[in-house]
């Protein structure tokens, strides 16, 4: 089934208290819970989330130290942040859930799946930033603030970007990211080899930050991983190809590894 854009469901805001953090989240829709962990830029409701809210209970977390939350000086590793986020997700979702992480968020999502595979129905990694090209470098605030255009393949989409970041927020987030990001997370790579959770990885064919050529390296670690290239999109799939991205996530959340079966009615005239 191809997901079609429908009436936008309004997201409501709430907070969950976990590990002495007040963690803000946005929620819309009903159905099975679909949890999103944002990228380095922080949380933003994208068109793909709105589409998915027509079918799922979509929960977008603002991880501690991002967006409007206070600076996070307590988490020293991505794995620690993952533990906090899993507690929050379980508390909000109420039971097992499908987990999606974007870019930096994919690292947190991966650690959750590795440590709590029984709680994760399916894992979706969008433009995952776990395996990197060789040019890893600490983030600078100026690079974060000026690098917006590089996130998009389509200039008109960049102009409509929902990701907004002021300097104070960028400073706060960069400090946390530079603590949690590593050039190579070999422990996580090793864990991928035996990860039992059905996993879908989405890459934009025009992404210059996470090139689609990295996809093969995940499959080399685990041949059960499913890779999907999203054509004509760069790093913000949820905004640049919202229908295509929502379709892939929805299909995988519903069918897992059997998502490759075409269930569409292909009759031209009934």
């Amino acid at each position: 089934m191809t997901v079609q854009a429908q009436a936008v469901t309004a997201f409501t805001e709430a907070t969950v208290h976990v590990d002495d953090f007040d963690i803000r989240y946005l929620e819309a829709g009903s159905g099975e819970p679909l949890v999103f962990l944002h990228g380095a830029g922080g949380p933003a409701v994208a068109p793909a989330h709105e589409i998915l809210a027509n079918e799922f209970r979509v929960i977008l977390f603002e991880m501690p130290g991002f967006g409007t939350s206070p600076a996070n000086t307590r988490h020293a590793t991505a794995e620690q942040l993952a533990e906090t986020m899993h507690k929050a997700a379980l508390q909000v979702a109420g039971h097992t859930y499908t987990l999606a992480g974007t870019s930096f968020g994919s690292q947190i999502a991966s650690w959750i799946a590795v440590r709590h595979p029984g709680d994760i129905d399916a894992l979706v990694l969008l433009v995952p930033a776990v395996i990197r090209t060789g040019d890893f470098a600490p983030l600078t605030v100026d690079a974060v603030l000026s690098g917006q255009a590089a996130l998009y393949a389509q200039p008109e989409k960049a102009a409509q970007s929902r990701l907004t970041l002021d300097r104070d927020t960028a400073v706060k987030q960069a400090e946390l990211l530079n603590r949690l990001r590593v050039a190579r997370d070999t422990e996580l790579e090793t864990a991928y080899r035996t990860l039992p959770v059905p996993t879908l990885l989405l890459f934009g064919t025009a992404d210059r930050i996470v090139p689609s050529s990295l996809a093969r390296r995940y499959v080399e670690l685990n041949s059960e991983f499913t890779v999907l290239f999203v054509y004509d999109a760069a790093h913000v799939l949820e905004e640049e190809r919202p229908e295509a991205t929502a379709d892939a996530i929805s299909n995988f959340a519903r069918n897992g590894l059997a998502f490759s079966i075409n269930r569409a009615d292909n009759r031209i005239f009934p």
Partner: protein
Amino acid sequence: MKFSFYCSPVYSDSEHQQSRSGWPVAPVHYRSRIGERSTDSALEQAVLAEKLGFDMVSVSEHHFWPYSPSPSPAVLAAALTQLTSRVRIGMMGPLVSINNPLRVAEEVAMIDQLSHGRAEVLLLRGTPNEFVSYNVNPAESRDRTQEAIELIEKALTEPQPFGWQGRYFQYPVVSLWPGVSQRPHPPIYTSGNSPESVRYAAARGYKLAISFYPVHLVAQLVQSYRDACAELGVSATSDVLYRSHVVVAETDREAQALVEKYYGEDGLGPAAAATGLGGIVASQLKPPPAPTAPTELGTDADGKNTAADAKGSARGFALGMINFSGAPDTVVRQLTEFQEATGVGVFELGFTGGGLTEDERTRSLTLFGEEVLPKLRHLGATRDRRGVSQ
């Protein structure tokens, strides 16, 4: 300078050649004896071209049409892989806007395997009538083509299974077998028949192929390709391919006589695709609004100038025209002037107009291979201070 023989199995029926049948042509006119002989003849000429020193033999794709009844270029290319041993095998080319791109990628890989690494491919969009052939919206054809090309390259190069979530194509699992013999993939050409296409080829590092245009337009396109490459900081390939037809005879006068009957009595040749239903399709395609939308220099998928071509009055456009003809020395001079004016690196030449007899085609090809081709090899080569070709 490299040379490619354009292997076109023109349906050689004098009765058909005398009738202006446009496009499509009814299958009722097909005679198996003539069809089989036409294809056999084209293949025999390809074998001869290899012996004569050509660097490549190539096939193209057209539908519902006796002028070039080659709807499946992979089938013809497969035959050529078994009949030749040295020449490159050019699939020039599959119409990716109307086909399943994965099927095209699989066929390219098979041809590369069958030929032991001799495959080259030109991934094309098609002419207006071809969009009707497989029921594709012409307005979507450019975007379909570009997506298909990207998917084909991905399919040829990805070492692990992947899925494709495109705008026009969607495949949950792609995992190509057989793989290609040439790594990372066989050489890829894309069309250079418009400024937009040229910039696209340069940006993606593809070779350039230009068909049938006159010298001044080819020069303009090749220069824009070089400019685009320079702007992008990439080196421009010298292998810009130019496709045209050629007639060679012992004398200029004899060659002129062959030119006059080359495409049969109607003289349309490939331009016949713009008549009949093909013409209706072309007339429905409106030129895109300038300056932001793609523009075309001549007759191609956007349908410009097709009416003039059909009348044979499109000044300079080579559909239905023979730009290179004469005695060997004349053709040497014509091709030398063309190459020096444009900078193309590969001449892809057809010798098979439907109006010529087999003997006339073979004689033309043989004269070219023996008396023209050897005198043009040096063209395009860089020269040192002593004027020695390198």
